[in-house]
C-alpha cells in the first residue's frame, strides 16, 4: 500500500521563474513527513510536483526525478492521471464540489473514475467518512450539500474524498490553516491514524503541529526574494526541533528568523 518517495535533483519552474532548485530527499512509507519554511520558499510548489499537479498551472514545468518505489513519476510513458490516483492531495482551503451532496462528494473520485461496483459504494463512503472522523456528524444528512458543512467539517470531507480512492500517498497543504483548535486536533488525530495505511506529507506553518504529528521534518528556505527555494535539511523531527545540524533551521524554529 504505502510507498516510498525518492526525489532527486528536482527543480520546478513557473514560466522562466525557477521556484525551487535541486531538491533531493526521501519520504519514508507509513510515516508523516512535515515541510516547514518561510512563506514563498516553495513548499506548496514542491508538494504539487509530487503528484504532477504542478504542471496543471499554466507555465508549470519540472526537471528532475521523483521515484515512487521504483517508478519515475516523470518518466515519459507515465500518465499523470494515474499518478494522481496513487498520490492524493488535500488543499489548504476546503473545496468540496458545490453541486454535490456529502455522499456524492466522497464518492466523486470513484464515480468520476468509473472504477467501482455500485453496491460497494455505500460501504466505501461510510468507511472513508469514518476514516476522516466525520461519519458521526453527517450520517443523518448524507444527501445534503457538502458546502453546508462548517469549514472544519468541509476539510474533513475533503480528506474523506481523498482517501476514498485509496491512494498510497496523501499530500496535505496546510490542511489546518483555516481551522479552529478543536478541528485542528481532530485532523491531527486523523493524520496519526492515517499513517498506519498511507505515506503522508504535510505542509504546515505551525511548528507545534509539525512537532506533534510528524516523524520527519524538512526545512526549506530561500536566500532572498525572487531566488529559488531550497531544501536546507531533512531529519528526524525530534532532532530538527532539538538539535538541528544547520544554524538557519535553529534560527527559524526559535523565531530568530529574518
Amino acid at each position, binding site marked *: 500500500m504505502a510507498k516510498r518517495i525518492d526525489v532527486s535533483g528536482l527543480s520546478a519552474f513557473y514560466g522562466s521563474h525557477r521556484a525551487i532548485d535541486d531538491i533531493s530527499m526521501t519520504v519514508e512509507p507509513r510515516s508523516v513527513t512535515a515541510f516547514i519554511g518561510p512563506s514563498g520558499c516553495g513548499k506548496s510548489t514542491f508538494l504539487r510536483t509530487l503528484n504532477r499537479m504542478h504542471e496543471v498551472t499554466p507555465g508549470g514545468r519540472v526537471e528532475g526525478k521523483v521515484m515512487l518505489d521504483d517508478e519515475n513519476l516523470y518518466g515519459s510513458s507515465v500518465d499523470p492521471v494515474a499518478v494522481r490516483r496513487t498520490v492524493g492531495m488535500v488543499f489548504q482551503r476546503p473545496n468540496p464540489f458545490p453541486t454535490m451532496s456529502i455522499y456524492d462528494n466522497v464518492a466523486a473520485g470513484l464515480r468520476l473514475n468509473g472504477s467501482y461496483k455500485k453496491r460497494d459504494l455505500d460501504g466505501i463512503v461510510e468507511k472513508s467518512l469514518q476514516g476522516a472522523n466525520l461519519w458521526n456528524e453527517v450520517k443523518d444528512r448524507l444527501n445534503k450539500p457538502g458546502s453546508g458543512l462548517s469549514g472544519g467539517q468541509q476539510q474533513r470531507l475533503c480528506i474523506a474524498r*481523498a482517501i476514498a480512492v485509496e491512494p498510497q500517498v496523501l499530500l496535505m497543504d496546510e490542511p489546518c490553516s483555516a481551522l479552529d483548535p478543536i478541528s485542528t486536533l481532530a485532523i491531527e488525530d486523523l493524520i496519526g491514524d492515517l499513517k498506519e495505511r498511507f505515506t503522508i506529507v504535510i505542509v504546515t506553518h505551525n511548528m507545534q503541529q509539525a512537532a506533534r504529528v510528524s516523524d520527519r521534518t524538512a526545512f526549506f528556505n530561500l536566500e532572498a526574494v525572487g531566488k529559488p527555494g531550497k531544501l536546507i535539511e531533512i531529519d528526524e523531527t525530534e532532532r530538527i526541533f532539538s538539535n538541528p545540524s544547520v544554524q538557519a533551521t535553529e534560527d527559524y524554529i526559535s523565531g530568530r528568523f529574518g
Partner: protein
Amino acid sequence: MDRQPATDTPAPGTLAHRRMPRWAPAGLALASAALGSGLGLAAGWHSKVQWGLLAAIFFVLGTYAITTAVEGKRQAKDRIATSIVWVCFALAVVPLASLTWTTVARGVKVLDGYFLSHSMAGLNQMVPGGGIYHAIIGTLEQVAFATLMAVPVGLLTAIYLVEYGKGRLAKAVTFFVDVMTGIPSIVAGLFILSTWVLTFGMGPSGFAGSLALTILMMPIVVRSTEEMLKLVPNELREASLALGVPKWRTILKVVLPTAIGGITTGVMLAVARIAGETAPVMLLVLGSSFINNDPFSDEQASLPLYVYQEYMLGTPYSYDRAWGAALTLIMFVMILNLVARAIARWKAPKTGR
C-alpha cells in the same frame, strides 16, 4: 478638520445627527412630481416626457437643497447620489413599462384561442379575423433549428477557450467571436443568401433563416458561456484533477454542472434575442399566409415578420393583428426568461443545510 464643517457634529462627543424622517425621499418625489406636472400643465406642454424631466430635476435639486439645510453637506452628497440613481432607474423603467402597457392594451383585443390556432389563409387586409398559428410554427421551428446548431458549437467553443485555449489559435477565435457579436442581422441574412441560396441554389425555407439566426446566436452563446465557465473556481478543477479524474471528465462532471445554471440563462437569453429577428427572416424565409410545417422547403411565416407585414398593410384590422402577434412574441420571450430563471435557481450550486 477643515473638511468637517461644524454643522456635521452638532454636539461634540455624540454620534447622533439631525436626520430627515424615513418618508422624506418618498415625500420629496411626490412633491416634485406634483410640481413638475403642475408647471407643465400651466405652461401648456403637451409632452408628458417634459413634465417628467422637470419633476426629475426638481427631485434631485430639491433633495440636495433640503438635505444640506437639515443634515449637512456630507449627507447631502450621499442623498444626491441616491436620488440620481433613482431617477436613472425611473428613466430606464418608464419606457419599458409604457411599451409593455401599449402592447398589452392593443394586443389583447384580438388575442384569443382562434387567433392562436388559425393562419391567414384566404384573408386580405380589409377583413378582421385570421390568426398567427402559421407564424408561431415558423418561429418555433426556425428558432429551434438555430438553437440546435448554435448551442453545441457555441458551448464547445467556449469550453475550448476557457479550459484548453492558449496561444495564437485561442486569441484568433476570441477575436472572431468578438467580430461576430457585432455583425448586423441583415448582414448575416445576406451572407446566407449569397452562399446557401444563390451559390448552392437552395430556395427560400425556414432552415435558411435558421442558418442566419445561428450566425447571430453563436457568438452570444460563446460569450455568456465563457463568462460562466470563468466563474467556476480553479480550486474545483484542481480538486477533481487531484482525485485522478481526467481533464475531460473534470470538465463534464465538475465544471459544467457548477456553471450550468448560468449557461442555461445565457442560452435562453440568446434564444429570446434571435426570436425577435426580422431582417434575415425577411430575406431568407420570405413570409407566408399559409401553414407550412416543413422548415426545409418553401416560404414560412414568423412572428416578427408577421408583425412587420401586417403593420405595413395599414388597415385597422391588420394593425390589431400586428399588436396581437407582438404581444405573443413578448410573452414567448418572457416565458423563456422565466424558464431560464427557474432552471438557474434549480441548478445553482446549493448552499445551506
